[in-house]
């Protein structure tokens, strides 16, 4: 099973590496959203660090929605998904492979956006980096667990550009709240204060990775 997951991950990253289509969109959009939010909120220099967690997570959610849709649009073209489904891997493996790809893409985008927020909003990120990376990973896993499931679903629906955000945004509210509150606590230096928010993220990840593994078959079979 893990060989299948790795094969999917390798295939998707290779496509990504050669076309750089979603990655370019991901990164540029992530940077742009941080700029847009900062300009719209127009914080005084002293208030800026307080806004950093909200700006970060709002940017991640909207960037992720766009980028993850793209991965399945690629599979639809020339019926690539049919080819993948004909290969000897089960839907759960395909789901985990796609999940891994999406987490990698999110992480690459964040590697650029997070330092940028540190600079633009004067947040002291360097000293709390290990804790921040853990929060980001838990948030990405939760985000990707549902986004992968629903992107596979809405890619075939009419008006898919609208359907994916409409279905995903309310479901992802715990990731947004948990991510923002955990990041806030980490930036204040107290990892202990983040316990409640980290608990929300871990619970969300556990529930929806399992749900995704079990339900993915229902959304990709024809």
């Amino acid at each position, binding site marked *: 099973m893990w060989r299948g997951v790795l094969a999917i991950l390798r295939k998707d990253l290779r496509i990504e590496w050669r076309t750089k289509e979603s990655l370019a969109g991901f990164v540029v959009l992530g940077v742009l959203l941080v700029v847009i939010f900062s300009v719209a909120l127009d914080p005084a220099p002293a208030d800026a660090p307080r806004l950093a967690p909200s700006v970060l997570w709002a940017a991640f959610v909207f960037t992720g929605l766009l980028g993850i849709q793209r991965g399945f649009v690629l599979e639809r073209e020339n019926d690539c998904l049919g080819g993948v489904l004909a290969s000897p891997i089960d839907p759960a493996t395909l789901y985990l492979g796609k999940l891994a790809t999406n987490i990698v893409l999110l992480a690459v985008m964040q590697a650029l956006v997070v330092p940028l927020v540190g600079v633009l909003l004067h947040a002291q990120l360097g000293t709390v980096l290990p804790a921040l990376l853990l929060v980001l990973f838990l948030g990405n896993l939760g985000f990707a667990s549902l986004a992968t499931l629903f992107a596979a679903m809405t890619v075939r629906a009419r008006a898919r550009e609208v359907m994916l955000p409409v279905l995903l945004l*309310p479901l992802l*509210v715990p990731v947004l709240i948990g991510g923002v509150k955990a990041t806030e606590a980490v930036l204040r230096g107290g990892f202990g204060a983040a316990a409640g928010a980290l608990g929300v993220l871990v619970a969300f990840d556990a529930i929806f990775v399992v749900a995704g593994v079990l339900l993915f078959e229902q*959304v990709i079979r024809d």
Partner: protein
Amino acid sequence: MPLLAALFPWAVLVLMLVAQWLIFVVVPTEAQMGIVQRIFYFHVPAAWAAFLCFFVVAGASAVYLWRGSRAADRLAHASAEVGVLFCTLVLVTGPIWARPIWGVWWTWDPRLTMTVILWAIYAGYLMLRAFGGADEAVARYAAVLGIVGVLDIPVIRVSVRLLHGIHPAVLTNKEGGSGLTDPMMRTTLYVASLAMLLLGGWLVALRVRTGRLEAEVAGLRRELEHV
């Protein structure tokens, strides 16, 4: 059984009237909030009915995915419609009460946030149904959403507690005693809730029947086209 089904709407009507009589005539006016507190007897029962509907959506969705029964699929769809209706009622009656009591129509309190998120999830469910048509794939997608939605409810509930809150906890007040001082208030709440739940049950039954008839008509139309 048919007799029971024929009597059911009338039973709902009588119970609804009894509930109105209790709410507007019998139950004493709350001392501090005054007359506006009576909207509570619509607000809370509607919230319970909405929750129940969303759990029925998940249960029926699971049965549909497991057994492929069209009846379960129609029950899930009907419950989602009625659940969104009740959830809308909660979101309308709440601000009417909040405006004189809190001084604002809306605040980002955990319970309010949670209700509006639930409303959005199931409004999205209805959108998915509306855009997809009567396709078998759409029924499966909706069932997945119905199950994911109910799994999300406890996580949303815990996560919104990380926000700041002011909503009154009427039945489970931790500072001892409930907000309902008069025993008649409790009775009224329970009768009003039963009436609301039965009304919901009747509406779901009507929508399930409509769905079955629609499927029948679609089947007949297909047959006629092939003749």
